[in-house]
């Protein structure tokens, strides 16, 4: 028995299969975190915002302090940096290392700055094991071998929101200060990132 399928039905089936094939793209895909295809949302600090702010800070630090020959350290060694308080004054939970770690890595790669992991705010070390080893070594050698940080890095992240009709606007202000042993802020920088939109969009 021959079954006759009308041409219209065939066309609909063909188009539907094409449409389904089009929808069968992968659910997840990799994107370059430093590229321009990352998700941008108005109300939150996106990964590219941290990178953008860190890039501005590192550019400014290298240009204004290192390139200008203002970085001071004993005996030509790399200057030692300690991380102080980075205040989060935004409405969202922010891991400040999203900003600070990028800056630390970039400064470390310059060969001019190193960060201590055994000294922290309130005596809390970033690396307690390293702090313990250092203390044990000093005890066994019976001498203090503590080099104090030449600089400390502190800062604040602030958020400002506006709305006009359906358009929402968020501004995130990143502020950092580099303070010398003398208590003088030898370098300060501020970067504001402002985003507008109605909902999350892909790309900038």
């Amino acid at each position, binding site marked *: 028995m021959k079954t006759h399928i009308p041409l219209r039905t065939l066309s609909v089936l063909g188009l539907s299969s094409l449409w389904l094939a089009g929808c069968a793209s992968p659910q997840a895909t990799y994107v370059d975190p430093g590229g321009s295809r990352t998700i941008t949302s108005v109300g939150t600090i996106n990964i590219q915002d941290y*990178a953008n702010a860190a890039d501005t800070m*590192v550019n400014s630090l290298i*240009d204004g302090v*290192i*390139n200008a020959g203002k970085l001071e350290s004993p005996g030509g060694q790399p200057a030692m940096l300690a991380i102080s308080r980075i205040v989060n004054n935004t409405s969202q939970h922010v891991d400040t290392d999203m900003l600070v770690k990028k*800056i630390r890595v970039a400064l470390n790669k310059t060969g001019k700055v190193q960060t201590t992991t055994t000294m922290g705010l309130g005596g809390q070390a970033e690396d307690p094991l390293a702090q313990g080893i250092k203390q044990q070594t000093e005890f066994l050698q019976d001498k203090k071998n503590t080099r104090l940080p030449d600089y400390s890095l502190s800062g604040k992240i602030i958020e400002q929101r506006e709305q006009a009709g359906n358009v929402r606007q968020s501004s995130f202000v990143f502020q950092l200060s580099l303070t010398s042993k003398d208590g003088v802020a030898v370098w300060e920088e501020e970067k504001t990132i402002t985003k507008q939109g109605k909902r999350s969009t892909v790309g900038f």
Partner: protein
Amino acid sequence: MKLPLPRHCFPFAGVIGLSLLTGCASTINTVERAAPVGQRQMVNDKRIITDSGLNRAVRIVGVNEAPGEFLKIQIELLNTTSSLKSFNYRFEWFDANGIQVNSPTSTAISRQIEGRESIFISAVAPVPTAKDFRLKLIDSTQ
């Protein structure tokens, strides 16, 4: 064939057309010192243009560098159109052997340029061994 547009619609059409034209003509006027004190140290550059539309809206005018242990580059861009343009840019750095230098802060940065506006973008090399650079520009209209 003539369109059956009523005669009394002509003034309204004219007003709408004029307002559309003025809405697009958002361009920048500038003033600066006739003989600048600072002298730019220009860099001979090589350009590869794959997006001619972007090249009209974000035209590279010139590249200059500043002396220092860390190479500093500044690039002047000019929007030759009369409308606002959004674009992304990203700097790449290379050492003396032509090997790319990676930086954790390297990212595409979004900028806007108004009609007929000239802007400068600059960057400092992430390491003192970086000797060459490349700037990538991409249209941010998705």
